[in-house]
């Protein structure tokens, strides 16, 4: 089987959308510079907001019909594989702009990644926004532009949406929900329960950047640090990985709870023991320092552009070099393996100091220590 031949890149009726003639039927113009409750009221103000901000940025033939639902040809979808993948995620990040990204970019990358890690080709996204009254229209435009740019780069279309405006204090500036649909190729059977003895654990680069960047961007610590969020769509990298290692067992993006949580999920679902090595686990000096100051553990920090892949031993080298060849996997590393005969459900780490410690699931939220 040559996985490279699979129709993983976009084809079909949508492919020309970006260059297609303007198919919009309305061209409302938004006058106000501030979002008010009127913009969620269902009247002309709302229509103008949708036309001038959302359709203007996301424009594609499926969206532009402005029906209550997006419609797809089943035959179009079937060319990508034999199973539909569907996911949804809500984005409520504070602050909404942070080094390395913003809530809009995050809302696209997060949902694209949730589809891609299942082996799906991400195709269509929805966009539902809850906006707090008083938001500057220019800020909203900036977020929407970021979503449009990221969607374009990720090769997905935003095909339907919803807008609500709530009173001051009812939400924090803006909440975005994106749901996504993708199609899984018939050859991929990825699952958290697929891990086998001797499989290798790969990650695609430095861990904890997003979590550290966000904590730092909140400004409470008054630290100046160059740490940027790693927020990025991983579908291309995953395609490269699956091409090089078609028997990959499982991929998961290590978002909230960090890689520690993903590894624990794999260990539990595959009823196996996982061992990782601190010396092989890539963490930036800046993130290490940040965690030292606050008493946090980088293994539990969120990522938005990092994945954990479980790959059979005989394909791990090929997987690693394919990942390293992609810009989002330049610092990929083989950090450990599934230990034959280890205690099922257990993750432990060989520390760089020569000791051994358990890496458990996080209970609640990581809170900085007193002293």
């Amino acid at each position, binding site marked *: 089987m040559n996985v490279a031949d699979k129709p993983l890149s976009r084809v079909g009726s949508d492919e020309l959308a970006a260059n297609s003639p303007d198919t919009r039927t309305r061209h409302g113009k938004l006058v106000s510079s501030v979002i008010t409750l009127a913009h969620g009221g269902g009247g002309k103000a709302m229509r103008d907001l949708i036309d001038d901000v959302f359709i203007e940025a996301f424009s594609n033939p499926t969206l532009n019909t402005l029906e209550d639902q997006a419609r797809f040809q089943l035959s179009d979808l079937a060319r990508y594989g034999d199973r539909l993948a569907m996911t949804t995620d809500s984005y409520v990040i504070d602050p909404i702009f942070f080094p390395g990204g913003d809530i809009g970019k995050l809302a696209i990358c997060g949902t694209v990644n949730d589809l891609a890690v299942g082996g799906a080709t991400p195709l269509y996204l929805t966009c539902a926004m809850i906006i707090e009254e008083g938001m500057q229209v220019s800020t909203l435009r900036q977020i929407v532009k970021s979503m449009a740019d990221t969607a374009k780069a990720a090769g997905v279309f935003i095909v339907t949406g919803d807008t609500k405006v709530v009173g001051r204090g009812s939400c924090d500036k803006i909440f975005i929900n994106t749901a996504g649909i993708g199609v899984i190729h018939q050859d991929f059977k990825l699952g958290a329960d697929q891990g086998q003895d001797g499989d290798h654990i790969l990650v695609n680069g430095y861990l904890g950047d997003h979590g550290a960047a966000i904590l730092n961007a909140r400004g409470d610590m008054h630290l100046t640090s160059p740490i940027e969020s790693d927020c990025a769509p991983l579908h291309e990298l995953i395609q490269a990985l699956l091409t090089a290692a078609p028997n990959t067992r499982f991929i998961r993006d290590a978002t909230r709870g960090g890689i520690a949580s993903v590894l624990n999920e794999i260990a539990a679902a595959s009823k196996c023991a996982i061992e990782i090595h601190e010396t092989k686990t890539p963490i930036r000096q800046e993130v290490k320092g940040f965690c030292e100051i606050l008493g946090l553990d980088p293994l539990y920090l969120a990522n938005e552009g990092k994945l954990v892949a479980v790959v059979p031993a005989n394909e791990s080298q090929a997987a690693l070099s394919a990942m390293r060849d992609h810009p989002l996997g330049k610092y990929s590393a083989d950090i450990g393996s599934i230990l034959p005969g280890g205690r099922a459900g257990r993750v432990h780490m060989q520390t760089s100091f020569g*000791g051994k*410690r358990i890496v458990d699931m996080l209970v609640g939220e990581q809170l900085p220590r007193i*002293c």
Partner: protein
Amino acid sequence: MKYVDEFRDPDKAKTLIREITRLSDQLARDLKRPVYIMEVCGGHTHSIFRYGIENMLPSSLELIHGPGCPVCVLPMGRVDDCVAIAEQANTIMTTFGDAMRVPGSKRSLLQAKALGADVRMVYSPLDALSIAKKNPDKEVVFFGLGFETTMPSTALTVLKAEADGIKNFSLFCNHITIIPTIKAVLDSPDLQLDGFLGPGHVSMVIGNQPYGFIAEHYQRPVVVSGFEPLDILQSLWMVLKQLHAGEARIENQYNRVVPEDGNRMALEAISKVFELRQFFEWRGLGSIDNSGVQLNQKYAAYDAEKKFALPAISIADPKSCQCGEVLKGAIKPWQCKVYGKACTPETPMGALMVSSEGACAAYYQYGGAPKDIIQIHQLEETSI
């Protein structure tokens, strides 16, 4: 990381482990039991687990995890009082991250926050003062806790509040002092301890002199230790060397940070605003004389206990909870009846399961599940 990696060098660790094993094996043979060394400070406990130090040590040496986790030893009644203040109208409660999760008899600050109380996490008491400046129509309370390590920053904040003429700021003071506590541990009848790792950060403030009585009256060596893994190994080695030579002295391994006489300015700030309480209640250890501080008469206007009417009800620890015995080193965490069953980091019953510096939480999180540990422990015991 510069100035950090040097203290985590695995090759140097191996050399130290060899020396530690040689000394402690000899001592254990003479004692006909393992050597017991207590690390007083929760920060040490955390490092020991984080770097997997315990399973690098020989079975002839056992570490007893002491009472030095200020979050852990806070009694439930005090948390209840704090929650009661936080739930007052027009009040903002501020505190450090890991104090938010400490269970009261009804709820923690984190739960009170979810129910509508304005509770904010700060990284320094000065942040609380800034919040007070920004919210002049609200009373901003800082839930201050910790040993002498965090006491100076609280004291300086009270002094700054006075200097800046800020009236809407107060302190709910739960600061505690280390020396009476070590004394209480040493006076405990079921105690088996051969030596101590002294708390590095506390000592940075109070210096090394206050530990003199441990060597003089109790004939136990104390080595004030840093928090990096090599610091801890070197300090253990230093304690063992003293034991081997039949000595009991106060030594300072952490001299890159700890001055012999402590930090004069910090001590001055402390003595300016604080006075000793007659007694303070500790979770797991009961009431200990002179073990807590409160604001003195001059700064009474900043004392939340005087500004607010508090329930001040003492809540007994749950009967099945054996934190006290663990704190004194009489039993190991996994020997407690409720460890890992009724008491887990998710639903902590006892103090030691609350903070990641608590011995039980550290065992649970980094050390392994009870079954594993019991098996390992039994193996160790039979090998002695």
